[in-house]
């Protein structure tokens, strides 16, 4: 009896110790099957038989304008051998998966078997949806997508793209920002600030700076770094200059908010205070600038007009031999 009790006690102690040490593993063991079950569900969408007549089977029911709009873009070009409707391709089922069961007769009370649907609000797992798109769109977007923040956030391709439209709105200069703003509300707010790039005006889109599918530039920028991206339109600031301004050479965002600002030049703060956050030399750089320097008091050259840039106008760097103070 005592031996049995001792054995039981040791078992309990061992179990407790094991759980303490390996609790995470036990939890993982419980969780893994849940994930694997999802994998089974995924697999079922990709298996099964294809319909007998391809698109003609589908269009017998799905003959609405939205569905038919796929024939008005690159997906619906039969002369392109690689398009879903190219010779020998799988037409609607190239994207939506095998549809024989879906198009067949369904017993009363039973649900019609699902196909692959697109959009993160649909039942098909996002990874399955995106894999369908990326299986064909395997150019640079297909490879680098998996390194992107969009992939990390489980964004479905169809969250942004409309494949059943004559022209996908997100590919237009005027329409792209509206799509991006749906999730990036901070950028939408910033874009309406008094000083911003003309994105809200439809004259510039997010893709002008961001490579939306790629994960190889920082912040998914279209060039490897922020500065290299900015120089595409602001090449005059590339330099190198005789007299460089250290933060300029390193990171434009130290002073600028490229998405919009309450302050001129899209500066993160109003001058002279922005400059004074880094410059503290004795004399005028250190002076407090307050209401006493306003136009109706003792107008201050350090506060009004262009403030510091009234004199130090070459803040992006000077190529003048006497320009060490960025005044020439």
């Amino acid at each position: 009896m005592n031996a049995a009790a001792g054995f039981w006690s040791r078992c309990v102690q061992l179990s407790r110790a094991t759980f303490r040490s390996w609790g995470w593993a036990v939890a993982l063991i419980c969780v893994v099957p849940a994930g694997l079950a999802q994998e089974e569900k995924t697999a079922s969408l990709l298996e099964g038989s294809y319909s007998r007549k391809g698109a003609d089977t589908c269009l017998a029911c799905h003959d609405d304008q939205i569905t038919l709009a796929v024939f008005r873009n690159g997906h619906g070009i039969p002369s392109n051998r690689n398009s879903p409707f190219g010779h020998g391709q799988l037409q609607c089922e190239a994207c939506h998966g095998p549809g024989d069961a879906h198009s067949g007769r369904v017993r009363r009370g039973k649900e019609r078997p699902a196909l692959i649907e697109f959009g993160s609000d649909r039942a098909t797992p996002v990874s399955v949806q995106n894999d369908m798109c990326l299986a064909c769109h395997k150019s640079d977007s297909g490879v680098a997508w998996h390194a992107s923040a969009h992939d990390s956030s489980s964004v479905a391709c169809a969250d942004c793209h409309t494949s059943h439209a004559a022209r996908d709105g997100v590919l237009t200069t005027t329409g792209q920002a509206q799509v991006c703003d749906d999730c990036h509300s901070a950028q939408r707010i910033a874009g309406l600030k008094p000083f911003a790039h003309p994105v809200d005006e439809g004259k510039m889109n997010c893709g002008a700076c961001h490579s939306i599918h790629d994960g190889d530039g920082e912040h998914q920028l279209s060039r490897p770094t922020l500065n290299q991206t900015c120089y595409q339109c602001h090449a005059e600031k590339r330099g190198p200059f005789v007299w460089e301004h250290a933060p300029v050479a390193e990171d434009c965002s130290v002073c600028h908010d490229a998405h919009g600002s309450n302050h001129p030049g899209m500066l993160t703060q109003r001058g002279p205070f922005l400059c004074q956050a880094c410059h503290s030399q004795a004399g005028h750089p250190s002076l407090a600038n307050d209401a006493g320097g306003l136009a109706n008091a003792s107008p201050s050259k350090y506060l009004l007009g262009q403030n510091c840039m009234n004199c130090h106008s070459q803040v992006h760097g000077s190529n003048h031999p006497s320009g060490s103070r960025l005044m020439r």
Partner: protein
Amino acid sequence: MSQYNGQRTLYFLGVAFTGLCAAHNSAAQPDTSAWKCEYCPFEKGVQADYKAGGGVVTDDAARFGNATGHDKQGGFVIAAGDGSYTSDGLQASWYLQDLGLDSRSALIEAGRPGSYDVRIAYRGLPYRLFDTTDTVYASTGNSLQLPGDWARSALTSGFTDLDANLSRRNIESDRDIIEVGGSYQPNARFELFADYRYQTQDGVDQFGGANFTQASLLPRPFDYQTDELDLGVRYRGERGYAQLGFYGSFFQNQNTALMWDNPFTSFPGAERGASAEAPDNRFGQLLFKAGYRFKWATRLLLSGAFGNMEQDEALLPYTINPNISAASLPRTRLDGDVDTTNLLLSLSSRPIAPLSLKFSYRYDERDNKTAQEVWSRVIVDSFASGDLETNRPYSFERNSLTASADWALRTGLRLGAGYERRELDRDLQEVAEQTEDTGWGRIRWRPNAYVELSGRAGTAKREIDRYDTELALSFGQQPLLRKYNLAHRFREFGELTFSGSLPRTPLSLSATLAYADDDYSKSVLGLLQSEELRYGVDLSWSVSEKAQLYANLGLQKVDAEQAGSSSFSTPDWRARHEDEFLTAGFGFKLKQIADRIDLTLDYTHGAGDSAIDVTTIDGRGPLPGLDSTLDSLRLSAIYKFSKRLQGFAELRYEAFEADDWALQGVAPATIPSVLTLGADPYDYDVFVLGFGVSYSFGSSQQTGDDP
């Protein structure tokens, strides 16, 4: 660089190079010989919509005209259109916008998908900053001259000839961009691509021309040209991808210097000043990118970019003051030379469906190889400083390591965590070594198809090896100051997002709350603290296929605190910044009212408020608020006369008003030692009204749901 990049990449490279889709599916491949696609309404021939008409702008307003081209009161022509042409294998499309305005654009793309494509595009981008600026200067090329009888004075109050000689000079410029590009695919694996962009930007901006203790804001004429080239080759295999390319940027400034007459009494010979313009520069970069897909959805991405930027513009002399015999320059051209290196290794894996693992390593380097020389400065063309200075070509190296894992549970719960380590090594600056460790967790819960809740939170700690106060002192900097991009910083951040929709009603709501707090606890002078709070609510309702409504509200608050010392010792003043920006918008789209009318309305309100409270010993009080208010309304109506002919009317109203103490009440001579351009804060109400017709050519499919 190009706003068409996305279009090009996706439309042509993506769609045109679609691969063998069927290969992805695990189902047995069917015999498609009987798939006739008899019901498929394939497009052929030309489909196009063109619109033409006229409109009127009710007032001059530079800010309103910025980017839109509607900066001048008066009439304008409406001309736009888009279309496509499809034949056996050949596809072309064109998009024309705002042809009657400075903001006009045109894009023409054509090609045989899967074989080749070409494109040509033009964009005009007007930049309008001020139309309330006045100057006494006349310009000839890069030279600004005062009136011949100008009476110089030590103070602006002594400019007796000022008012009589002021004339309006808008601060505005125009950017024109022409792009030509294309790609060729000799087979399904290879693609050659090339894009060329030609940008010009010319006009007038404002530039501070310094005298010894005075300055003039100058209407600086400028004329830039940039040529860019992207070309390369891509290879796509079943599992792998590789790209090799070249990017070149060649900037030319038509002006090497800006010369101007000094309106103030000055040191002998300093009646004229000269400033260097941005030098011509060249940048060339070799790029490669390669990816491979292994088993278990494991993908490896390698990319690299090796660049070099140079500039060898002839240097100006130390001064143009004939009374100063300055030393000879240590070199006549800088021969600036900077190498850039950017490398990325990224590994992502999904060994089982719910588990996503990511790892990346990034290396960025700017190696400024420009020679250091000893220079003797002439202070603003007035007198020799007597000091010798050495230029500081800044270099840095940045290493970033990121790892993250996400696990998706069957219950709709997705959990993730990540870590990032950034190391930054610089030279010639106060901080040589800097590290930042960031950790975050995220959760996403989607219990059903209608509700989703997601959150992300983390902390980041930036540390430095030491702040070199001796170096700071050698620059004249206060040793207690910590530059905020070089300082210790502890950051907390979080974001919570809810989105939901009703099961049978297409009504969706999303809300976002975000928070970030930066604490520079080891800084005595400089930026001490910064906090951001942001809310956003979006509502959209698809009432029916013909009616959609939306509304949104957003608020962002950024508070910051900094300390300064006017006595070059301990802090004796503080500035508290409170930036707030509120946006609200609503709109609707109604289609086929009485089967003939489409109506669209968008309204946006934005209100910015920036308060700066400066606390000083003598307590002269906070600065007035920098307030701005924007109201923007866009209303358009389309009436369908027939299947092809439509009439349209567009109304746009925008009101903007800003209080800005930097400009308010600052006439050209208000500041005793600065001659300004006297720009006024923005304040305008503008209506734009346009009418016209549009006509659709081509198939009925293109005309969509016309009656």
